[in-house]
């Protein structure tokens, strides 16, 4: 039984890692906002999906700025009970890609054989959005996505928000969403990180990541948060997330189930001067999770305490655009459940992620970006087990480090072509033979060409 439990825990972990690996890149840039407001994309985006200061303001306001003809209703006391665009704010997104890794991936069935390198996905991802105002102070950003790697249509990012301007210096709101940080305003956090918001959907990606950096979102959660924006510079947000995976019932077959609710917090200060803006902030989450995976949802939990610092600088000139984003995430994992079940070597581990990126665009058309990423953490024989080729950790360490460089061409404000190269100095804990099956970190270096249109 103990062995079975252990095996299923490891299997659960592998599934979670694979889910992380295969999670489609998020995308935010919706022409229905442009149709609703009459604003060109450049009003809200430097180059999509990165937001300008006004784009952040539009989001804070609950996506409600609207100039379209309305269907409206009022009560006899003149209270507005309906304000609906005559045409629904719909948008469509299409992504197609080409991915090639330095060394082909092993064949899934035949030993010593390799898969075909150089994969075309058409589409990599296709999404339908409802994005715009739905009532006087209520707006929605809802994304449904066809995922080309899994061949299925599913629910994606959702952020439904209510916002009120209390007075000149105070705006407050509520956000109901399914991805911690999808509601965030800056492009340092995981949901909308720039400059590398898009990664190949088929190339191997590092297996270890923190909860706030996508882990919790992939486990399937829903949450509500309240935010305030003071004096056009101070942002405060407090929220909580509960498990809400796509499955109808949450039971022992689920994995990483939140016990109670996981509090989420965000603090940021932004200063704007002339064409410049600088943000400095912090965010975090406290999540107690039942590992699940054939283990009943009771007894000890794993506690993940994440705190993070972030900063973003933007210069938005007429011709030159510069953005620099950075975040550092620290996660303390108190693994009462996993350690108790004999599936981790340590009762507690740490995991740290650092990301720094800079991008430059000329004329909002021609751009380039360079970024460094690193995830390092405690050595743990069982948590980071050898596992399968490519995805395994033969050195018992979660460490992955490397660089990404990208060239972009944005011929129209809603069309982007990106050529990206990612180099790994370390992958899943090692540089050479990191998976115990002879694969080196560099073998996962990825060339990725992405075509992306929104309309």
């Amino acid at each position, binding site marked *: 039984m103990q062995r079975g439990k252990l095996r299923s825990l490891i299997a659960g972990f592998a599934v979670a890692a694979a889910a992380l690996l295969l999670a489609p890149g998020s995308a935010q840039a919706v022409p229905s906002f442009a149709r609703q407001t009459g604003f*060109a994309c450049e009003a809200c985006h430097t180059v999509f999906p990165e937001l300008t200061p006004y784009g952040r303001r539009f989001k804070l306001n609950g996506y409600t700025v609207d100039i379209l003809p309305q269907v409206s209703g009022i009560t006899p006391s003149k209270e507005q009970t309906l304000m609906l665009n005559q045409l629904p704010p719909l948008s469509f997104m299409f992504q197609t890609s080409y991915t090639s890794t330095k060394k082909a991936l092993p064949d899934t069935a035949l030993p010593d054989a390799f898969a075909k390198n150089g994969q075309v996905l058409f589409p990599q991802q296709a999404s339908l959005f409802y994005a715009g105002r739905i009532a006087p102070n209520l707006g929605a950003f809802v994304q449904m996505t066809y995922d080309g790697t899994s061949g299925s249509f599913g629910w994606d990012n959702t952020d439904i928000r209510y916002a009120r*301007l209390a007075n000149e210096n105070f705006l407050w709101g509520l956000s109901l969403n399914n991805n911690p940080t999808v509601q965030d305003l800056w492009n340092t956090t995981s949901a909308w990180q720039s400059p590398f918001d898009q990664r190949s959907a088929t190339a191997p990606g590092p297996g270890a990541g923190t909860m706030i950096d996508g882990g919790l979102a992939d486990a399937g959660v829903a949450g509500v948060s309240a935010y305030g924006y003071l004096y056009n510079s101070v942002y405060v947000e407090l929220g909580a997330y509960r498990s809400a995976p796509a499955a109808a019932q949450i039971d022992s077959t689920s994995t990483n189930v939140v016990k109670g609710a996981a509090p989420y917090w965000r603090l940021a200060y932004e200063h704007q001067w002339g064409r410049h803006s600088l943000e400095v902030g912090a965010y975090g989450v406290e999540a107690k999770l039942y590992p699940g995976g054939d283990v009943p949802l009771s007894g000890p939990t794993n506690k993940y305490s994440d705190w993070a610092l972030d900063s973003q600088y933007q210069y938005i000139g007429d011709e030159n655009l510069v953005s620099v984003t950075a975040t550092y995430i620290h996660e303390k994992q108190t693994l009462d459940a996993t350690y108790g079940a004999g599936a981790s070597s340590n009762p507690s581990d740490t995991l740290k992620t650092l990301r720094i990126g800079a991008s430059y665009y000329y004329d909002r058309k021609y751009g380039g970006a360079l970024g460094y990423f690193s995830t390092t953490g405690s050595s743990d024989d069982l948590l980071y087990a050898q596992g399968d080729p490519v995805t395994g950790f033969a050195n018992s360490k979660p460490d992955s480090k490397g660089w990404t460089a990208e060239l972009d061409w944005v011929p129209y404000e809603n069309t982007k072509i990106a050529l990206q190269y990612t180099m790994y100095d370390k992958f899943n804990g090692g540089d050479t033979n990191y998976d115990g099956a002879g694969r080196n970190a560099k073998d996962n270096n990825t060339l990725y060409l992405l075509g992306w249109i929104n309309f």
Partner: protein
Amino acid sequence: MKTIIALAVGAVLAAGSTAALAQDQEGAKALATGVCSACHGPQGHSISPVFPNLAGQQSAYITLQLDAFRSHERGDPNARAYMWGMASQLSDTSIKGLADYYAAQKPAVGEIGDKPLMAEGQKIYTQGIAAQGVPACASCHGKDAEGAGAFPRLAGQHADYLVAQLQGFQSGTRANAPIMANVVRSMSPEQIKAAATYAASR
């Protein structure tokens, strides 16, 4: 009897137009605080120098600009990106209502710039640059930069916004003010900055 009817009709009409006026004012206020405020602030004190402060601006000037956005006569990059769409659905009545609403708000207090820049700016503002054929800004915009009718208030404006407008007049991207195109033609970037800093500080 006729007089009484006339008086009565007059009173009804007056009441009606007062009610309509009140409704227009209310509508303009709702528009200003509900939509325009996202960039220009609820009382016309904008959130960033990309967007002008509108509080205390000349009503006639605001009317002219909104009309120029609507007709695409004013086409500088930000006008296109933001205001063409915003103004496209405005009626003449709502334009007038918005203009009056902002004109009635309390203007922002100007920021004082660097001393040498202010000194040079004051000279340009009050005397012009005779050698380059630049007239004194004060001659149209007023001694205290409060503006007059079609000539906008500059006092309390973001200096960066004024610089961007002067650059737009110079490069021709903002082509709805032929007078200004002539005025700034020979001005250097430093002179533009100085004049804008001084005017904004009034």
